[in-house]
């Protein structure tokens, strides 16, 4: 049963019923607040020292117990780069756009234009500004808030500032956007040079069996940034970018990709998920077969079918299906459907044993409008996996009566030649295997 809104309210309240105000909170807050006021005054008085100290790289700050504050991030200190670095009129415009957009009361100094340059879509820039205070905001690692940064991009109505992001000390720039799509069709990718080699992949395609195909290309920076032509990113994001070598762990965030995936911030809905555990699956998987968990070897086997470096929405109309079963010869059978954006989905079947030995045995393109969208003939005469979410399934051999095969998904014998599919609301249709 689905929880209604009242239930959600109730569980959130009950989950926090045990909380009470910490002892001595008022006194503790006042003490801490007074320390912050003192530190703020000291910082304001010591700006000249901070500026001088930044040349050495790090200022040892002793205001509150000798915390070490990195005040020399290159994003705040280095001379502006880009072919518009000396275009005072543009820099003035960019700073003005920044000031209008940032009404934060804890900024100090002047906004710093890290990069300003011409792109095929017009003049763009990246701006940062320091915060008044540098509290530790990343734990563990004592990453301190240093300031804020944002792209300023060209539009028909003039320069526009995009999402304002916090910048941390101690080298925490991985979480920040380093790239942006430009132009009304978003067919130019601007990537900033943060000092490390970068690769990008302009598009994604599929091999005939559904494996993801991507070409990784090096990004060549010039004077602090690179403008790269990419396919138009109107309704989906095909581009991936990251530190070299491009991988799941080195991906670089593109600041405005969510505008493409969720235009207007609107929800696109979620696909309906179906997890089927076939009768007898426990013989292969053990008693505790759990549709929410995958053996490590299965995860590895599916990986070539997953775009681990890309960013995608999902089609809410296309179900998300998994089937756990066991083959007559005792192997574990696992089927997953994988689908991105409005691309065709694929069903992938793997067989294996234990934690690590899994092999992809058969795949197919899935058309969810078909009466029987999934029909995967397993090797070695192990039968055919068929699936049609929520539908009643029956099968028969060349001669003979229809045999019940349950609902949603079934492993039918190798001799079956037809499957009858009866949707929950609809007419029965027969599909040949």
């Amino acid at each position: 049963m689905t929880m209604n809104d009242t239930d959600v309210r109730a569980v959130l309240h009950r989950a926090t019923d045990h909380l009470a105000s910490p002892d001595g909170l008022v006194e503790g807050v006042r003490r801490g607040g007074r320390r912050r006021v003192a530190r703020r005054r000291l910082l304001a008085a010591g700006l000249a020292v901070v500026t001088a100290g930044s040349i050495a790289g790090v200022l040892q700050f002793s205001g509150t117990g000798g915390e070490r504050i990195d005040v020399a991030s290159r994003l705040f200190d280095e001379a502006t780069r880009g072919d518009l670095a000396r275009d005072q009129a543009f820099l003035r415009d960019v700073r003005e756009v920044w000031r209008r957009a940032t009404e934060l009361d804890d900024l100090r100094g002047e906004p710093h234009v890290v990069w300003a340059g011409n792109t095929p879509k017009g003049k763009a820039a990246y701006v940062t500004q320091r915060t008044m205070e540098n509290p530790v905001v990343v734990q563990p690692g004592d990453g301190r808030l240093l300031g804020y940064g944002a792209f300023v991009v060209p539009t028909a109505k003039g320069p526009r500032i995009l999402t304002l992001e916090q910048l941390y000390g101690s080298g925490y720039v991985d979480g920040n956007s380093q790239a942006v799509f430009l132009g009304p069709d978003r067919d130019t990718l601007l990537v900033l040079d943060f000092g490390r080699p970068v690769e990008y992949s302009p598009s994604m395609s599929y091999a005939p069996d559904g494996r993801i195909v991507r070409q990784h290309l090096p990004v060549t920076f010039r004077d602090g940034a690179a403008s790269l032509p990419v396919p138009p990113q109107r309704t989906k994001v095909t581009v991936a970018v990251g530190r070299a070598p491009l991988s799941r762990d080195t991906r670089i965030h593109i600041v405005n990709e969510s505008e493409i995936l969720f235009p207007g911030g609107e929800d696109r809905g979620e696909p309906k998920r179906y997890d089927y555990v076939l009768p007898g699956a426990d013989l292969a998987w053990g008693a505790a077969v759990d549709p929410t968990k995958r053996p490590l070897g299965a995860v590895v086997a599916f990986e070539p079918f997953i775009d681990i470096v890309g960013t995608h929405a999902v089609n809410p109309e296309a179900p998300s299906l998994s089937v756990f079963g066991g083959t007559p010869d005792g192997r574990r059978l696992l089927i997953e459907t994988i689908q991105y954006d409005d691309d065709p989905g694929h069903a992938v079947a793997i067989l294996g044993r234990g934690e690590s030995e899994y092999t992809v045995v058969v795949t197919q393109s899935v058309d969810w409008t078909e009466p029987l969208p999934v029909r995967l003939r397993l090797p070695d005469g192990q039968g055919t996996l068929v699936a049609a979410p929520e539908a009643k399934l029956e099968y028969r051999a060349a001669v003979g009566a229809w045999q019940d095969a349950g609902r949603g998904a079934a492993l039918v014998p190798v001799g079956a030649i037809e499957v009858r599919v009866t949707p929950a609301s609809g007419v029965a249709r027969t599909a040949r295997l």
Partner: protein
Amino acid sequence: MRDVRGAEFDDFVRTRSVSLLRVAYLLTGDRHAAEDLLQEVLEQVYVRWRRVRTTPEAYARRALVNRAANRWRRRSRRPESALGDLDPATPDATDGVALREAVVAALRTVPLRQRAAVVLRYLEDLSVTETAAALDCSEGAVKSHTARGLAKLREALADSGLVVTIPNGSGSSR
């Protein structure tokens, strides 16, 4: 020198700290982290009291969400600690602890801004407009975050096998 914050600030902390702590707890999933977060935010309110004294709670909520996001961003890069290590159970309240652990674990599956939208809308009963102010986003985005967050939360709670008995006859859900 007289402290301009006076009793007004103390009253704010005394009357609103539990409510803010509840939000912080559901955002961080950890009582100790929530208390630290609350202390940081209230210190921030103290520093800016003259500017925010007319709407201190709104300011504090916004700061809570922003600071929780910073913590969460870092946390997501390291393995999760077991909940039992973070917030030990008291043996005489096992049902409540089980529910709490299930809810916190389920919330962990919900991205931070979606989680914040759900918590502010359903725990704090804020309006869409008030939630938009706290999240610094449009009202449309709040609706989107809330809908997606709720869907994920419901799914995660259903997967947890949690059986919730709601008092006052509002039914029970799995």
